[in-house]
């Protein structure tokens, strides 16, 4: 009930409007219309871009790490280390992560910043932690471990017999990945990418601690709309923005469910 009531209310409140002069509430689609233009629209575009880019990068890098670890020769210890570390780091979002990065490459006090500027005389080369690129760098810190955790079971389910069979039939490594391994792995990899996307899309604490509300991101906009007591009706804008987020994530998850149905066939 704690879950369903707020979401239901969200869906209703997003269609309400408060009259600026009389403070009377009425039914209206104004808030929803407002979401599709101006600052709100820019925030959605910003959030979607950031989430998409970090999801793709996180998927590629996480997959590379998972494969590298699973096939390492001195496997056992390294494997356990990476998997445990992933378990910790995947949940290491939020405030501490933001501060760790400020201490590392923050513009004036960062340790690496100091090293690059004072000792090597290089500077950061125009890179700023407080930009979209900076946020992406920080987000990857919890997205890559999340990818490793999500994809490891699927990688382990690739049966060695399949590789042996394709070797015996004279297939090259490329042909194995092109016709056997790749197609089997594609659904779980896509699914994991959706999960990464949703997780980057919903991130608030990290962004808030890093950039305040200077970048166009939906989560930051919602918090802004809720905390502003000056503009009448901003509360309704906040609910409309939040409803939009639920819709976006819902679409992503519908796609995820569809992809998963295709997975079950091989990785049962």
């Amino acid at each position: 009930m704690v879950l369903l009531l707020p979401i239901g209310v969200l869906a209703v409140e997003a269609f309400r409007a408060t009259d600026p002069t009389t403070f009377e509430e009425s039914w209206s689609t104004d808030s929803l219309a407002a979401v599709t233009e101006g600052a709100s629209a820019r925030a959605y575009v910003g959030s979607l871009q950031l989430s998409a880019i970090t999801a793709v990068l996180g998927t590629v890098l996480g997959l590379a790490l998972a494969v590298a670890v699973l096939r390492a020769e001195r496997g056992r210890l390294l494997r356990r280390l990476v998997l445990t570390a992933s378990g910790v780091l995947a949940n290491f979002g939020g405030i501490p992560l933001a501060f760790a990065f400020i201490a590392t490459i923050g513009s004036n006090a960062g340790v690496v910043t100091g090293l690059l500027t004072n000792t090597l005389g290089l500077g950061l080369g125009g890179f700023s932690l407080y930009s979209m690129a900076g946020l992406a760098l920080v987000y990857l810190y919890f997205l890559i471990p999340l990818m490793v955790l999500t994809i490891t079971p699927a990688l382990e389910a690739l049966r060695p017999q399949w590789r042996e069979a394709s070797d015996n039939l004279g297939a090259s490594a490329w042909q194995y990945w092109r016709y056997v391994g790749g197609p089997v792995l594609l659904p779980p990899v896509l699914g994991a990418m959706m999960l990464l996307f949703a997780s980057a899309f919903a991130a608030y604490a990290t962004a808030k601690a890093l950039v305040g509300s200077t970048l166009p991101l939906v989560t930051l906009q919602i918090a802004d709309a809720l905390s502003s007591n000056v503009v009448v009706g901003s509360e309704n804008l906040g609910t409309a923005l939040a409803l939009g987020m639920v819709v976006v994530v819902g679409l992503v998850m519908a796609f995820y469910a569809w992809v998963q149905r295709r997975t079950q066939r091989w990785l049962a």
Partner: protein
Amino acid sequence: MTALAEGVAGAGSVEPAAPARTGGRRGGAWRMVVLVVLGLYFAVPIASSLWFTVRDRGSGGLTAEHYAAIPGAPGFAEAFGRSLALGVLTVVLALLLMVPTVVLVELRLPRLRTAVELLTLMPLVIPPIALVVGVRSVLSWAPDHFYGTPVADAMFALQEPTLPWILVLVYVVLVLPFVYRALDAGVRNSGLRTLTEAARSLGASWPRVLVSVVLPLLRTSVLNASFLTLALVLGEYTVASILGFETFPTWIVQVAGSQPQLSVAVSVLSLLVTWALLLLISALDRRRRTEESS
């Protein structure tokens, strides 16, 4: 939904089976590159944070003063105590809710498994910030629609700033996926069904089965779920800050403005504590495994 669910439970709950292929083939170079680059990427921020907090700016030497200053920092004891209390309450409530559910689903109502699984995954899908906006709207009904009724009084009581129960309720929802996965993994791996059937056919009563069979079997997964929940609640910022309560993470943000090194020191410490908790979980998990196989 399995991949998603595995990801959730991944935080130390079950150690996966041995790798399908261990022997390295050709092309070890790219593997080394990946490991080194990503290893640096993950190690540098933590190392830098440590350096940032132990470096003495005046003399250039090392100092532990920022760590020593944590317990006495103004507001720390209060905020941390509140977060800890919220964490413990969340653990208790989530377990009271989920242990009977998981056991019932496994033993008596296996048909409901899919429904329960889907329901417990919902909080993972819905962004916490969207959830909390809805919670805020519901709470604002109290003065608007229910003023002077017991409902309003109850809702105001939930928002008591010293111990906000509303946060406990929201956190129970947010940790549901993690708790469910941990408990479900425990139930499945332990052969609960067989053991209860054995106990029943030997003439044990249901209460007896619950106390002497079910609870001991679930001990590790209950611990597992509790640690994860505690770690998540101690780090939760979004809900607390939007609803305007002061907890441990919101306190860190407040402090960061005036004492950056203190805030980084607290962050490093909270990471280490989380790490220790999760390592403990995986150690417990392994011990149980070896006990079972011997």
